């Protein structure tokens, strides 16, 4: 803190931040870097909203009979918490913020393939968000983020229509972003940047984009059908009118399972970048990690039935989905082994991004392993619908994806803002987040195993101790999240000015000034070395 001085208003070099002033230059921009910042502000806003719902839930759950709200309200809280966090924070987070900012820089291009489509993506996202906010203010929906029929389509009296429209609209934002990235990576790589010289972050963004493009339209059509049913009272998914509720679930989970890979793959890409930089070593097994990313994307589409083991689908379908679910764990595990092999004999330092990346590896592994319990049919019968599932996906989504996101923000902050943040505070925040996270969610594994159901506003008294522990942890976690908000905003004005390559790291994005000029590169760069050329004399095997 003592080194940070009030930076005088120096005549700053022209960059994308000061290239133009006024709200019009931001809201009508086609510069991918500015659009990334637009997304950064909006998703942070939704993170606060979704997080507030979580805080209210955890306060409510300190008492077995509920301490805060009516059960009907509790149902609305967990529904909106899920919808906001998944569709308006996690899915866009790394792709729309870090991806938008970095993909053109990493491929050495001036912008994405379709800059105006990129801006349209953001506006579509905002419209979807407005519908969701409206539904929250107008009373909320209580169906769970999974919208299971026929409750959501026929029987619920809450704001299901509004929030379903919000999610439907936001899906198109996701599709267009994915489309933009695929085309950019195929068609706009700089001379010399072959596929196998690309940073692994680009590979993971590419795999994510494939999922976004192929899966999200199915979510769109199933929500469209849900809205038809709700508005016109037809019976597509309602048994009383001849429909099958399981058809809704098939179509819904066909997207929503790959959606979780949309949320985790970019974080894995970030972790690859950070691990390489802070071990000063090439990622061990580059090609295998690249192929694993694509394998996760493809295999992820084959496992959706594991959300439906206890809903009445055919036993044979369940068998196949169970087997495929075990299969999809393999590429993820391969990546974890590759990261740890990279760390071995590396020259490791513990700056804030590295702490997030290391935390990711541990927590993601735990979350992933618990997924295996759930992939086995027999144990899933016991664990389904309990807090075990809640803990499982929070370990991956929060312990994994959010930590990957924060790690990425901290790693590329100097490039994005041109400023450095105080490393001590950042490391402290990372530690607080790690501790708070585990305190919040580890008790939930135990609660689930002992039988506490999820989505319940009350519980048997013997579970109170674990619930209180979880809520206490949530408080710590919340504090941990607030700290970066403070020092990152502080750094934009008072942080030390960052050079082009502060860490230093490899990759084209570090070869341009911090912050970059609007056109990214003065001349088109030419790539002559492999990715992660940290120690040229290193004879690391591939």
């Amino acid at each position: 803190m003592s080194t940070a001085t009030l930076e005088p208003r120096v005549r700053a070099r022209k960059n994308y931040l000061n290239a133009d002033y006024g709200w019009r230059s931001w809201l009508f921009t086609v510069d991918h870097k500015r659009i990334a910042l637009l997304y950064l502000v909006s998703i942070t806003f939704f993170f606060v909203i979704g997080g507030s719902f979580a805080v209210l839930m955890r306060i409510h759950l300190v008492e077995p009979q509920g301490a805060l709200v009516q059960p009907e309200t509790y149902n609305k809280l967990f529904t909106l918490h899920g919808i906001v966090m998944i569709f308006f924070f996690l899915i866009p987070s790394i792709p729309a913020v870090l991806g938008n900012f970095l993909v053109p820089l990493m491929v050495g291009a001036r912008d994405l393939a379709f800059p105006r489509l990129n801006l349209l993506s953001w506006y579509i996202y905002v419209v979807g968000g407005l519908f969701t906010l409206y539904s929250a203010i107008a009373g909320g929906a209580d169906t769970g983020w999974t919208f299971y029929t026929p409750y959501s389509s026929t029987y619920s009296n809450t704001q299901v229509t509004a929030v379903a429209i919000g999610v439907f609209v936001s899906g198109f934002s996701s599709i267009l972003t994915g489309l933009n990235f695929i085309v950019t990576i195929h068609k706009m790589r700089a001379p010399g940047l072959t596929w196998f010289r690309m940073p692994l972050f680009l590979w993971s963004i590419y795999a994510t984009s494939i999922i976004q493009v192929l899966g999200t339209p199915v979510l769109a059509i199933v929500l469209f059908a849900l809205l038809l049913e709700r508005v016109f009272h037809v019976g597509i998914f309602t048994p009383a009118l001849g429909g099958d509720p399981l058809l809704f679930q098939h179509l819904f989970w066909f997207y929503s399972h790959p959606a979780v890979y949309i949320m985790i793959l970019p974080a894995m890409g970030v972790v690859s970048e950070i691990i390489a930089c802070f071990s000063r070593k090439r990622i061990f097994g580059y090609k295998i990690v690249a192929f694993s990313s694509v394998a996760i994307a493809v295999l992820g589409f084959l496992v959706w039935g594991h959300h439906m083991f206890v809903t009445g689908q055919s036993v044979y379908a369940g068998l196949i989905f169970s087997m495929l679910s075990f299969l999809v764990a393999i590429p993820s595990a391969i990546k974890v082994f590759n990261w740890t092999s990279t760390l071995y004999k590396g020259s490791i330092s513990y700056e804030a991004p590295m702490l997030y990346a290391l935390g990711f590896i541990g927590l993601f592994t735990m979350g992933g392993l618990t997924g295996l319990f759930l992939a086995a049919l027999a144990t899933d019968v016991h664990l389904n619908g309990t807090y075990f599932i809640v803990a499982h996906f929070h370990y991956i989504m929060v312990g994994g994806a959010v930590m990957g996101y924060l790690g990425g923000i901290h790693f590329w902050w100097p490039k994005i803002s041109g400023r450095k943040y105080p490393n001590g505070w950042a490391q402290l925040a990372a530690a607080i987040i790690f501790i708070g996270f585990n305190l919040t969610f580890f008790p939930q594994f135990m609660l689930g195993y002992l039988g506490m159901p999820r989505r319940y506003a009350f519980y048997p008294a013997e579970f109170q101790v674990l619930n209180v522990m979880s809520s206490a942890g949530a408080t710590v976690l919340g504090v941990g999240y607030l700290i970066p908000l403070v020092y990152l905003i502080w750094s934009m004005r008072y942080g030390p000015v960052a050079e082009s390559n502060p860490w230093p790291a490899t990759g084209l994005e570090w070869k341009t000034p911090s912050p970059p000029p609007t056109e990214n590169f003065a001349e088109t760069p030419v790539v002559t070395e492999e990715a992660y050329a940290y120690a040229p004399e290193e004879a690391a095997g591939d």
Partner: protein
Amino acid sequence: MVFLGLIGLTALTTGVAFIDLGPFNTVVALAIAFCKMLLVLLFFMGLKYSSGIMRTVVIAGFFWLALLMGLTMGDYRTRSWSPAPDSWSATAPPTHP
């Protein structure tokens, strides 16, 4: 040219609908539709002359759709198959519809 082929196939498919082929009516109709689609894809949309990546993209799209339909339909079709009886001397499983 291609257009005449498409018109011919449309006439064919409509005419076939008036002949009784049992369950094959659907198969034939879909097969004809598939041929029409191929004609449009290859010639009107230029896929015959396009690079490998465009073709990969299109094939991937249809493959994914096949995944969706196949696995979902698989659930419905196998629901009535009962699980294996848990004793060797148990009664035979009911026949499939």
